[in-house]
């Protein structure tokens, strides 16, 4: 009997461990493949110069800049809106059918396929609001896609601030807003930041939402204003691998590597912020 339990324990341990290792494998495989094939392409010239000869030579600078602009634009539109909405929902709104409806809407917003966002952005921003295919239209589209992530993670960060801090603050005669501003928000910032960066890193890698709203097929110059089209890394990868014949493997993998590194850097930043905060956390 006792031996049986030990054998089963070993089998279970093995299975659990194997499942965990299996999760790591695809990530490692993908990253290694991209790294090995893409690293040789990664020269300053590749990163900082314009594409040439119908994208078969030269660099990918406009696509990098375009993606960075889009990430910044997305943050500008989605961060304030998302955080304010989260503050309203956690600190002000009463529990009733309307707030429940809003929460359901947010959850569903997160589940909408990205191509639908792309078409929605095309309809609303590009055509109806007449912004044209532009950085601003693309940023707004990506912002809507990112909002649920930001709202959800901000709400969690706000709720994680102990209720007792609020009570203490109120008991000293603070108003709701004073309490939010002085006690709740400062302690929720790291969580909000982490969620936001993760949301933005997803936005950086999306192709479908920018397809009709901003991404340029081939535009070997930098944008002059936020009403310009730009090239963007995810769409550029799609173009290189399906729309342009005879692009060298090196350029394709190099572009992918740049995008993956960008997203990795953002994710790691988020993890570092979270880890730092955990260490500093006082309750």
């Amino acid at each position, binding site marked *: 009997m006792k031996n049986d339990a030990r054998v089963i324990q070993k089998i279970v341990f093995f299975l659990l461990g194997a499942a965990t290792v299996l999760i790591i494998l695809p990530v490692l495989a993908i990253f290694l493949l991209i790294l090995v094939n893409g690293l040789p392409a990664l020269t300053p010239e590749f990163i900082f110069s314009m594409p040439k000869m119908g994208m078969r030579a030269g660099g990918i600078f406009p696509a990098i800049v375009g993606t960075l602009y889009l990430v910044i634009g997305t943050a500008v539109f989605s961060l304030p809106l998302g955080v304010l909405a989260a503050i309203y929902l956690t600190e002000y709104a009463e529990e009733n059918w309307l707030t429940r409806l809003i929460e359901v809407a947010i959850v569903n917003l997160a589940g909408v396929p990205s191509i639908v966002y792309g078409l929605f952005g095309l309809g609303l921003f590009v055509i109806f609001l007449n912004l044209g295919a532009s950085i601003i239209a693309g940023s707004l589209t990506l912002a809507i896609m990112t909002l649920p992530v930001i709202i959800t993670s901000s709400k969690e960060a706000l709720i994680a601030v102990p209720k*007792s*801090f609020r*009570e*203490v603050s109120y*008991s*000293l*005669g603070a108003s709701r807003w004073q309490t939010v501003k002085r*006690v709740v928000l400062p*302690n929720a910032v790291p969580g909000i930041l982490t969620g936001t960066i993760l949301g933005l890193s997803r936005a950086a890698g999306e192709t479908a939402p920018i397809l009709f709203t901003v991404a340029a097929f081939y535009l070997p110059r930098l944008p002059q204003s936020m009403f310009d089209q730009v090239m963007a890394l995810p769409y550029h990868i799609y173009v290189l691998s399906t729309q342009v014949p005879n692009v060298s493997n090196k350029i394709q993998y190099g572009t992918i590597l740049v995008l993956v590194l960008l997203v990795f850097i953002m994710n790691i930043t988020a993890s570092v912020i979270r880890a730092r905060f955990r260490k500093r956390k*006082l309750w």
Partner: protein
Amino acid sequence: MVKLRVENLTVNFDGCQALKAIGLEVRANEILGVIGPANSGKTTFLKALNRMLDFIPCRRVAGKIFLDGQDIYANMDVLSLRRRIGMVFALPLPLPLSIFENVAYGPRLHNQKDKRKLEEIVEKCLKASYLWDEVKDRLHTPAFNLSGGQQQRLCISRTLAVEPELILYDEPCSGLDPISTAKVEEAMQELKKKYTQILVTNNTKQAARVSDRTAFFLMGELVELDDTNKMFTAPKDKRTDDYIAGRFG
């Protein structure tokens, strides 16, 4: 002189009655002890006084509470009410700030920006709770590094810093060791000179030691209120006698 008068105070939560027609008076500069077993409505009573009950969605409050003759549930701004009636909670609850900023939190809320003034207030309030000597060299370190007893005295200082007239204590020593408890009690005795205090406690001996008069709550009712001496030597009500003697609760 009557500082606070409670008339016919009844509180319901979702149909369950937490306080039944409480009526009592609190005299200026006294310490009123409130004792009673768990679920007797002591904390609800305190929270009705500084309107922290407002945050509980399904509460219903009836009756009247007068602070210096002014009805606190009618035409009184709740934020200024909470400045006048301070509260110290059961657990030491420092804010995640430095010792200094914890005490300065209240004055800052109420627009005290002058750094010199703030320093004065912090020193004065920390001295009033007998904490100053222990922390004066590390005012700008996190309040969470203090011991439990020190944290609770810090919370008292923080409450004092908004210059309330009445201080509510909700079992302030329930998490403290005897020495820390003694220090908190000592601080309360000293504070009598300036403040009116209501002390809710699970510890009947503490009420006997500290309070001038004691109220005994049972299942939402005020059973008896009398001078502490009388109450603990010759209670009028049999239930009070049983509770004090430790026969139930």
